[in-house]
């Protein structure tokens, strides 16, 4: 969604073309991200001729401030949906920055890893908005990601396993 998409596209901005093909996954309720992504990829294809990317939508796992019990149900549904998608894409690397949408995808990837189907590296970058506390996605994925990046020093202190590179968006 919105700010997350802008942030993640900035994270991608300096990546080499070895990071290809890029598969974007976002919430079905998200109307603006597709346009931003296409615009980013369009500019990219002006520099790198063989740019490849795909877009996929999954059901949104949780609305802002949705209740705990209904969140569990909607997240389970999103996981069921994202499992076949993740299986199809078999990513080597998953990069996410915190929308609820990323949790089911990461959980699917972890399951596929446990089953010996495909082991993806999960890199989580907490949003620049998070200075003192982690988002809910961050709190969950802190334990399940391979690399957990924070953008403010306070968080590095509170979450010692995290990586601090300064502001990267």
């Amino acid at each position: 969604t919105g700010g997350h998409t802008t942030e993640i596209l900035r994270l991608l901005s300096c990546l080499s073309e070895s990071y290809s093909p890029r598969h974007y996954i976002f919430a079905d309720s998200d109307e603006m991200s597709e346009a931003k992504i296409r615009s980013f990829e369009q500019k990219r294809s002006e520099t790198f001729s063989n740019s490849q990317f795909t877009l996929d939508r999954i059901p949104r796992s949780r609305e802002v401030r949705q209740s705990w019990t209904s969140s569990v149900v909607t997240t389970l549904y999103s996981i069921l949906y994202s499992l076949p998608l993740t299986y199809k894409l078999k990513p080597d690397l998953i990069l996410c920055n915190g929308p609820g949408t990323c949790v089911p995808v990461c959980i699917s990837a972890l399951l596929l890893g446990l089953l010996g189907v495909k082991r993806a590296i999960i890199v989580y970058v907490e949003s620049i908005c998070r200075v003192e506390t982690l988002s809910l996605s961050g709190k969950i994925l802190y334990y399940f990601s391979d690399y957990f990046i924070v953008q403010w020093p306070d968080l590095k202190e509170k979450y010692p396993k995290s990586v601090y590179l300064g502001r990267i968006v």
Partner: protein
Amino acid sequence: FRFKDSLAEDLWSADLVISHAGAGSCLETLEKGKPLIVVINEKLMNNHQLELAKQLHRDGHVLCCNCSTLVETLQSMDLSTLKPFPPGQPEKFALFLDKVVGFQ
């Protein structure tokens, strides 16, 4: 206006921006080098939205006030005390990721 797809044009031509504490608004304004006064309405906001505004204020990049103190802030403000906001560095992320996946 109530909503525009992009505020970029308006931001470029502004001399001063007064905004709510939304992260996108704050960062976009600071990146364009415009002085920013952030108006905080604690009742309307998620606690976490305040985090960024408070940090930016601590670092001297923005002035803060609430709805009732806005006029007073505008009258007594000294924008020269605001520090420039350096851009983020996605290159550092790219370097880090290259090492992680083994491209070097």
